[in-house]
């Protein structure tokens, strides 16, 4: 049975079903109880499962993550919420030094089936500290799986997979997609497996690799390009760690061109990893360099300026156009202009 739901509703359904099926699952964080979370992703869970299963913690993120570590060591499966991307930073030590490492430190004698949900990225007119794209910090930390859905259906199934996973999963939720409605099948699974990317649209001329909030941008760009007679394939990573080399490489080998789209500031981001991997593995199939379309290397802008920062269809299409040329003459020419 399928239903139209928003991504927020799909996530809520996934948490509800996980709480129902496994009594070891606990949901906690700031305002996830009676309020149902600032994005209402935990709406109704305390009502249905009681304060024991879904509860508010004191206001301290290292505390939330550290509590989850202890509870997981004690046999529970915590699913915790960091209220916003930048507000997970106080927990960074707990995440990098403990969540990511405990299994390894103890040679597998202890494991941490913890899901850390993080609403992230911008595009919703949020004020400072509420719009960071922090996925690269986690993707660069060995021992963490990093997931980010782009559809309501994936939101449901990837979250179910994450809760069932024996290892810690950083579950990055693109804020701006919380309210996007889609057909979602919470009953029988159609979604791809955990760790597999999805080809959202097939194309011949170039591959757009995107994840999370950038997937709709990629699809719109492909739509627009099609009108100009250019056929773009769109790959949605779904999981950043593990990374689905097979799907990405197969696509780029076929199209011979690749643009990576990432909302985060570009420098040393996940897009850099994708570009590096693709050229390592597809070099002799590439007719042009792998280009990146990203946010600028600046702190997230105030709402009034975020549209200038965010990768949009035009920025993607500009990149696609550049795939036709050598050594990006225009970019070099910009450099000269700039200096």
């Amino acid at each position, binding site marked *: 049975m399928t239903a139209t739901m928003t991504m927020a509703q799909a996530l809520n359904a996934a948490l509800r079903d996980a709480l129902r099926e496994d009594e070891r699952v606990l949901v906690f964080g*700031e305002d996830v109880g009676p*309020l149902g979370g600032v994005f209402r992703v935990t709406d109704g869970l305390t009502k249905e499962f009681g304060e024991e299963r879904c509860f508010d913690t004191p206001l301290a993120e290292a505390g939330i993550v550290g509590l989850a570590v202890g509870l997981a060591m004690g046999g529970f499966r915590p699913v915790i919420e960091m209220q916003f991307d930048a507000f997970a*930073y106080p927990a960074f030590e707990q995440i990098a030094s403990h969540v990511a490492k405990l299994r390894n430190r103890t040679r597998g004698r202890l494991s941490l089936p913890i899901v850390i949900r993080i609403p992230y990225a911008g595009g919703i007119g949020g004020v*400072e500290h509420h719009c960071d794209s922090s996925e690269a910090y986690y993707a660069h930390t060995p021992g963490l799986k990093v997931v980010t859905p782009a559809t309501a259906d994936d939101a449901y199934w990837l979250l179910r997979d994450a809760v069932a996973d024996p290892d810690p999963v950083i579950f990055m939720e693109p804020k701006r997609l919380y309210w996007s409605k889609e057909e979602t099948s919470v009953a029988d699974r159609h979604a791809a497996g955990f760790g597999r990317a999805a080809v959202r649209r097939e194309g011949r001329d170039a591959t757009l690799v995107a994840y999370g909030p950038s997937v709709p941008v990629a699809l719109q760009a492909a739509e627009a390009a099609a009108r100009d007679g250019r056929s773009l394939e769109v790959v949605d990573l779904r999981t950043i760690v593990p990374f689905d080399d097979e799907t990405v490489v197969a696509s780029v080998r076929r199209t011979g061109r690749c643009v990576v789209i990432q909302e985060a500031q570009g420098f040393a981001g996940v897009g850099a990893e994708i570009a590096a991997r693709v050229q390592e593995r597809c070099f002799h199939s590439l007719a042009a360099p792998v280009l990146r379309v990203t946010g600028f*290397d600046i702190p997230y802008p105030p709402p*009034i*300026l975020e549209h200038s920062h965010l990768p949009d269809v*035009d920025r993607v299409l*500009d990149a696609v156009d550049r795939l036709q040329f050598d050594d990006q003459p225009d970019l070099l020419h*910009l450099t000269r202009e700039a200096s």
Partner: protein
Amino acid sequence: MSVRRSPQTVDGLLPSPEPVRFVAEDGTAVEPPAGYAEPAGEHLVEAYRRMVLGRRFDRQATALTKQGRLAVYPSSRGQEACQIAGVLALREDDWLFPTYRDSVALVSRGLDPVEVLTLLRGGWHCGYDPAATRVAPQCTPLATQTIHAVGMAEAMRRKGEDGVVMAFIGDGGTSEGDFHEALNYAAVLRAPVVFLVQNNKYAISVPLAKQSAAPALAYKGIGYGIPSEQVDGNDLVAVLSVLTAAVTHARTGGGPFLVEAHTYRMDPHTNADDPTRYRESQEVEQWESADPLARLETYLRGRGLLGAEDVAAAHKAAEEYAARLRDAMNADPEADPFELFDHVFAEPTPQLHEQRALLASELTARED
């Protein structure tokens, strides 16, 4: 060989067992604990004027969210006594480290209300000049500003200035590790900083009982060797008296001081919040009877310090202020996209020059 301290030291660090009060909820005077002086009458009248203005500003800001002129606004209604006493207890050359909640303190300090609201209307992050106003940018990452306040206090001490820093924080923020580190650093450095905890009983939806099991948050001071006090945060006279003593303590080399002001957040966390999900309306109504502004007005009238014409004048001034603000906020904020690259570093890196040029080419492309 083990550490020995006189219980004396200890008592000096504990707050009064009951919140300090000068004025009861009905506006009548009550006997305050020994050692606290009642502020001069003209100060209280000035505080009254600012409370009237502050509340009007707050109401206007909330109205602006409904008109779509403000993206979001965390109201101070009910907390004016804390915020205005906090400002009145300071000198112009003292520093203030506020949170997103403390807009009323800022306008009361004399900052341009439009500049104060720039962040919340979606304009640039901080609309006012922190260096010129000696007011740090309103801080969102909870409790982080309290350590900056300690650093600024230490800087003033080192420069031989006798300035004091007041760090604002909420009850929820006290649970963050940074608050602990700030208190400890302040105590060890004997920095001239006053920590003002506005305990408004909620952290968004989380009530105090889920936030802390302490007898009162003011009892946190002794664990750092910081003298502390708790005060009725809806009694302007009491808050001003206690904060004035705290600031004097800090200014005269006594080191840090911790004040917990018991108050209540009358409005939703922000306009985007839905309090019906987590608190009863009766609770809010009960606190109406503790309203700090009405209480001060009754008290000042009773003491003959405030006349009907003073009240009218204060409200008239506040209305004019609100009208000017409404008009000023009617214009859409403007911003230059290229400024995005101007303040990342003093000098943009080659990479930023490149990205600026990319944006420029995009904008020209859009034009044709």
